[in-house]
């Protein structure tokens, strides 16, 4: 089999695998308006606990513990706090995914979808995933990467700004449609 045919064959296999994956039904897709539920879930945001996590991972705390208690105590505390930070990180990801899915629902309802905007969101998602994995690995190996954690929070923030703009536009469009409809109805009533 020459190289070109091998490429074609592999591409065919890849298409077949993607087709199976795409057609597989997921529980989320089976539930109607599943994504809209995320809007109601946004109350429980974990990103709010960043100051506490930051405090828990502060180097001063460990120095204090080591000086007043023992090095072993500081190590135990560090281990426990890293676990908390990891849990926080997972929750931050969950916050991001909720917003991301909500953004997709908004886009799917919008009569016009901008390719650039969608690609930008995809890029945001990829950036978030990459940073998330890097920070997680750092935590697992015993580092406390606070600046990275901060930039991860920024990704969530940027996404929320974009969502706000999108929602505002949609709201304005809905209001305009309602206004047009009511003015048309009014004209109809005035007509003898």
């Amino acid at each position, binding site marked *: *089999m*020459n190289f*070109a*045919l*091998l*490429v*074609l*064959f592999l*591409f*065919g*296999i890849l*298409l*077949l695998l*993607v*087709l199976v994956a*795409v*057609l597989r039904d997921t529980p*989320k*897709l089976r539930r109607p*308006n*599943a994504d*809209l539920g995320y*809007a109601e879930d*946004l*109350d429980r*945001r974990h*990103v*709010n606990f960043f*100051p506490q996590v930051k405090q828990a991972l502060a180097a001063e705390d460990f120095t204090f513990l080591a000086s007043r208690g023992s090095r072993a105590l500081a190590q135990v505390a560090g281990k426990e706090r890293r676990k908390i930070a990891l849990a926080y990180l997972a929750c931050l990801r969950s916050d991001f995914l909720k*917003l991301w*899915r*909500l953004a*997709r*629902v908004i*886009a*799917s*309802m*919008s*009569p*016009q*979808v901008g390719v650039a905007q*969608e690609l930008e969101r995809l890029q945001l998602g990829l950036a978030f995933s990459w940073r998330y994995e890097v920070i997680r690995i750092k935590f697992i190996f015993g580092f406390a990467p*606070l*600046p990275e954690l*901060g930039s991860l*929070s*920024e990704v*969530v*923030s940027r996404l*929320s*700004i974009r*969502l*706000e703009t999108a*929602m*505002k536009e*949609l*709201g304005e*469009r*809905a209001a305009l449609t*309602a206004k047009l409809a009511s003015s048309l109805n009014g004209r109809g009533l005035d007509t003898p």
Partner: protein
Amino acid sequence: MSSFPPQVLVLWACSALAQLIVVILLFSKGSFRKLPFFTVYVALNLCQAVFLVIVYSICGTSSETTKSLAWYSECVTLVAQALATTEILRLALRPYQGIWGLAWRALTCTSAFVVLMVALTTRGDWVTAKWFELNRGYHLTFAAAVIACLLLIRYYSIQVPAAYKMILGGFCLYSCTEILINTVLQSLLKKAFYDYQPIWQSSTMLSFIVVLFVWVAALWKPLPVDARQATPPSDSIYQRLSPEINERLRELNEKLLRLWKMEARPQ
């Protein structure tokens, strides 16, 4: 006709029978009104079978005229296949104007990319096996474009009725198997391909029969009500969600910005 091996003739008969069942189902359940292009596609496939029987009877099975006529008739059904697929995608995405716009662009980009890829990989020797290469190129482009649309549908969590999914999946499955069969046979058999033509015929027909059974299952029940009626009016969703989400996002954003500023402050 008698020069074909018995297994090819049996598969041909099975395929024609399955197509007939699909046509009957389309008319008996009233689905032909919703899927006119798909109905035309299946009917054209049946007509092609009849046409080929006549051609093989008059011109024989191995003449150049027969081969050309057979491939020309295939072109007609392939065009009908593309139209039928577009029809189903349009039906599924009609309530989502924005996504439909995006899907069109995805279709164009994917098709252009795959056509370029096919042109590059088959450069040089495609004149000798013109029809074969064109057929595979078409199926590659078709499968990639439809899968791109299906990915888009999944990404935006758009609910597509199972019947439409099965029809689209059937089209893709057929195209994928065509790509694999053509590639494997071309690489394995090379110049001896014409001696092993029955293998190619049997395998392609078998995959088409499988797809026809999938379509029979999809069309067994009447097609669902128009998605436009099933989907709640988007304006009311916006009006209900917009102030709520805006408030929450603003709150989240402010908190994050404060955190970020705090983080950026030199310590």
